[in-house]
Structure formats: structure tokens, C-alpha cells
């Protein structure tokens, strides 16, 4: 569990970047909190710097759009989803629970490797 900060410091429409095993971006969409991997799957860019449009964030560099609920890109240039993470709120403090499961593609790749090994 990663401590993000106080909810009062993350008003609606804002985002913040925190360090987990990898960097994670946390967004406040009209009071609803979402967390995804911070690094765009297309090329190196920080999604916490991106533009929030409804429940999607647009990468600040090349305009790839990711759904904050599923991590899926809505089309080019990104091909792979970002991981999503659970967010919880206790006494006005925000926490992120980093997913151990990687995105669907990575899981499939890991399974393929496991099969090869066994």
C-alpha cells in the first residue's frame, strides 16, 4: 500500500505521480479516484502530466488515450494497456494498492514463459 497524500491536495481534475515498484499516476475525476501506471505504453511519457477528458487521460506527448477504469488505450498510437490499481480513502488520506497482476498482455507473456519453462 502506497500513501498518496491528502484528498484536499488532489481536487477534481487533478493528478499526482507516486512511486511504487514503478511510477503510478493517481487521478481525481469529479471526486472519483483512479490509479494507473504512470508511464505511457507507447513511448516514455508521464501520464500524470496528461490531459483528463471524462474518464480518460490523454498522454501529454503523443495523444494516446487511456481509459482510467480499464487501462485500455482507445486507439493509436498506444497498443498495450496500462495497469490499473485500486485506490482507497481513509480519513481524507489517499492510498494506492499496487496491482501484482500486470496488464493482460504481460500476464499472457508470463504464462507463455511459464509453459516453456515447465
Amino acid at each position, binding site marked *: 500500500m502506497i500513501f498518496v497524500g491528502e484528498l484536499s491536495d488532489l481536487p477534481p481534475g487533478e493528478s499526482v505521480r507516486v512511486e511504487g515498484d514503478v511510477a503510478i499516476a493517481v487521478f481525481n475525476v469529479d471526486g472519483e479516484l483512479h490509479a494507473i501506471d504512470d508511464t505511457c505504453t507507447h513511448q516514455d511519457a508521464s501520464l500524470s502530466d*496528461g*490531459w483528463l477528458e471524462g474518464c480518460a487521460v*490523454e498522454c*501529454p*506527448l*503523443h*495523444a494516446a488515450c487511456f481509459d482510467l477504469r480499464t487501462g485500455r488505450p482507445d486507439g*493509436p*498510437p498506444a*497498443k498495450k494497456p496500462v495497469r490499473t490499481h485500486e485506490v482507497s480513502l481513509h480519513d481524507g488520506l489517499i492510498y494506492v494498492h499496487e496491482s501484482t497482476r500486470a496488464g493482460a498482455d504481460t500476464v499472457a507473456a508470463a504464462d507463455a514463459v511459464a509453459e516453456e519453462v515447465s
Partner: protein
Amino acid sequence: MERITVVGASLAGLSSARALRNHGFDGRITVIGAEKHAPYDRPPLSKEFLAGDASEDDIRLAEDDDAELEIDWVLGRAATALAPRERHVLLDDGSRVDSDGLVLATGARARTLPESVPDGVHTLRTLDDAHALRRELAPGARLVVIGAGFIGTEIASTAAGLGCEVDVVDAATVPLERVLGAEMGAVCSRLHARNGVRLHPGSRLAELLGQPRVSGVRLTDGRELPADVVVVGIGAQPNVEWLEGSGVSLDDGIRTDARGRTNIPEIVAAGDCANAYRTYTAAPMRLEHWTNALHQPAASAAALLGQEHTAPAHHAVPYFWSDQYGHKIQFAGHRTEDCTVHVDEGNPDGDGFLAVYTNAHGSPTGVLAIDRGRSFGRWRRRLAARE
């Protein structure tokens, strides 16, 4: 309309095919590409791919889902002529492709020196170009770059990172002067200097030395710079010669309206080859920006199918980025000669900044950011809403 041919198989061509399907077209789509390669992403060719940090697979543009587009690919074949009324496209193997509608997306190519050049002199536009240049950029190699535009400065940055000795020659006083102006170009000059790249402003190439392989360059002021490798980065020109005499209106590319329509019915254009009317500048402009090649096809494909298309407002603001020496440079909008520029955030010689270009009427027309992605995104939308 049952058969649509897209001439050009790079980002604009692939995006056109995707857009046609998105708009509900279920007829035959043929995509013709002069290169033998399946569509790939060009920006990394001067950056991650040239550095060896990205593979051909990494820069592939087609996705798994694209199989559903059911495209007939004709790759490794260049279009040589167009019969506009019949909408016949002739290819360089003598074959003919017939269609009911056409998207012209033939892009641009690297401008070259008029005379023949010795070995070791490169341009960079295609995957094959990038492979050839990559082989030559060994640590310690002496590279001279002719031209301090985007391609030249990005190659200088990548080559410096690979341990090459780099000189950049340009007629202007600072890099990227035409786009960014003198003041912000000077910021870029310091970026190169801090990374050990030598700039030679106000200099012109007189002669390439060495035969059969290049050994240096002589400048018009008589100075000679030794070189193991030379890159000529003097811009690009639209691939439209094949349309000469076809009746399609040409003027620095293919003239189109804001929706991508040419002067000929059922023929639209998109991407680097299209000199389209831009609502942002209220004038026609040919853009070689990646985002233009990504977004413009949606409008052109809709126009071809007779459909309405509304793009997000900020897509109308021209936008490009560049990565140099680990810094993300972003520019949106348009700089005119009457513009003044002021730093709105950060410090040009610190860890990132954002600068705003304002025209003679006091209205912001452009924004430049280095390592200020978040503020830049807001400004780009502010520019879109300025009317």
C-alpha cells in the same frame, strides 16, 4: 462507393484506412506503399531506433486489430500516374488499380544535395536510411550534420549519446530558427553546447571532401571539418510529382480545403503531402507533423464518404515534439515574424520551462515547452479556444 484506394502506406495512409472503416465504409480498401515495409513509425528513426533502443518490431504501426480492417496491401510499388476522371492509379510495374474514391497520402521525402555524393553521406527518412546510418555511428566516429532543423538536431543528439564527435552546420544563426525564432533557438544552441555538440551557425556547405568515401566538408568561408560520416538534413519535399499533369491542383503539395478535399471529386489528400487550408491560421499550410498525419485522415476519410466529422478543437492547433539530450521539446501553434516570446513558467537554462508566443495584436499564437508536459497540454487547449 465500393472501392477506395489509399496511395501511401505510412502513418497517414494507415490512419486513412482505419478512419474509413471507423466511418462505416465496408467496401474494398487497397493501400499502396512505395516502400516494401509494412507501416512503421518514423519519429523514432532519428531517436530511439537510431540509438539502438528500439527494434523494428517496436516501431511497427499496425496492431493486431488491424487485420480486421481487411486491407489489400500493395507494398514495394510506387504510384506513377493518376487518371483522375476514371480514378485509375498506375504503378511502377505497369499495373493499374481502379477505384471509386482515392486518398492521396504519399508523404514527403528527404531533400538531397543536387550533385552525387561520396559514400558515407546520408539522409534520414526511411527505415532503410536509419539502418544504414545506424551502422556508421560508432563511438568516436566524427559526424558532420548539414542542417539544424529537427532531423539534424535530433540526429546530433542521438549521435552524441552514442559517443560520436558531432559538428552541426547551418546557415541560420541558431538551430530551429525558422520555427522557434532567434530567442528560443538560442536556448536550443545552449542545449547542444552543454552536450558537447559543436554548432557552426551562419555557415554553408561548399563541398563534400573525399572520394570514394567522405573525409570531411568544406564550408563557404573556407573552413574544413573532418568527417567519417555526414548527414544531410535540409528538409523534406512532398511526393507529388506523379500527379503532375493529372489535373489535381498542386502548390507545395496537394491543395485541399479544410476537410482534405482536392479540386477533383472523390479524391482527398492527407498527411505530409497535403497543403490543406488550416482554420487555425486561416491559410493553407503543409504540415509535416506526426499528429497531423495521425488526425487529418479522419477528416479526409469522412469527406470522401460524404460524412460530417468533428475533431476535438485542440487537434486544429499544429503540434510537434522533439526529444533531444533527454529533454522533451514540445511546440504548438504557429509563430509569425511579428511575434514576441516570453517565458511563462520555469527558466530556459534550468530544469524546464514554458514560453508563449504573442502576435502584434497581443494574442497568443504559439507555445513552446521543454520538460513541461502538463502546462503545455493546458496551453495547447487554450490556443484552440482563443477565438
